[in-house]
């Protein structure tokens, strides 16, 4: 393990210990397969936005964006790793009530990117859908 990858692993452990809430976090692929990410992934940036309707003054759509940071090693079903894909969902039970997010890319971006040079953590862009 290089010093860089060791540092990344330590950062992941620190983030998991400090930023995860212990509440159930479930990743559901479009096909229905699920991955339990409780205690493994953590929420990142949350950025509510207001998108005015271009052709009607006074109308706007309020969107709740949220990123989730997921260690690459933890995103796997039956031992087979996979990458996040548009339409996948994360169900976050923080606070008791389940909040559902769907993987959707912001305009001009991909659905996810690596957060580090060693490609150990996905930053997945999501929008609240329920």
């Amino acid at each position, binding site marked *: 393990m290089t010093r860089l990858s060791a540092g990344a692993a330590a950062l992941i452990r620190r983030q998991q210990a400090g930023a995860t809430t212990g509440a159930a976090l479930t990743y*559901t692929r*479009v096909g229905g397969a699920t991955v339990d990410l409780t205690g493994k992934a953590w929420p990142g940036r949350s950025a509510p936005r*207001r*998108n005015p*309707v*271009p*052709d*009607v*003054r*006074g*109308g*706007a*759509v*309020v*969107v*709740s964006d949220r990123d989730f940071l997921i260690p690459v090693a933890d995103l796997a079903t039956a031992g087979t790793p996979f990458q996040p894909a*548009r*339409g996948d*969902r994360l169900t976050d039970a923080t606070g008791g009530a389940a909040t559902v997010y*769907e993987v*959707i*890319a*912001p*305009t001009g971006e991909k659905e996810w990117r690596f957060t580090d040079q060693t490609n150990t953590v996905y930053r997945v862009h999501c*929008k*609240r*859908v*329920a």
Partner: protein
Amino acid sequence: MPTAARLKEVRDGAVAKILAAWTDRGANDAVAGVYRIDLDASNLTGRKVFVFPVSVAGRQVDRTEDENDYALGVWVVERYEPQGDPPDAWLDDRLAWVEWLWRTLGNPRGARLLADPGEPNSGLWPAVAEITAAYDHDELAEGKLFASVLTVIYREHVEGP
């Protein structure tokens, strides 16, 4: 001269016209006349139609009559709730509904808006009706929202001052 108060009446008349024509509304479908609305995309259910007052204009037609125009913006928005992207068939249905709404509001040979039953030439007719944006691509891609905008200009002739 056209007035802002009349514009609000026209907006509310258009809302009533939509409600009367849209007989197969679902429990979560709704029509409302508004000045501004911030719609939370995360908990939107059903099809929503919002009618906005946009502008007024007027001119003298002859020595006794004025012609007044009242422009309305109509925003149709609906979220695709299942997981994943909406299929084309779902979008086809919404576009067909928007066309129906355009025909309903934009039919110049239909009953006049806010017509006085005792005055055969009273009321407003659609001088212009357009589907300004059939759908908003960004809202569809970013929020799984079908969002369409129509613009209707209602016209009436009234006795001048």
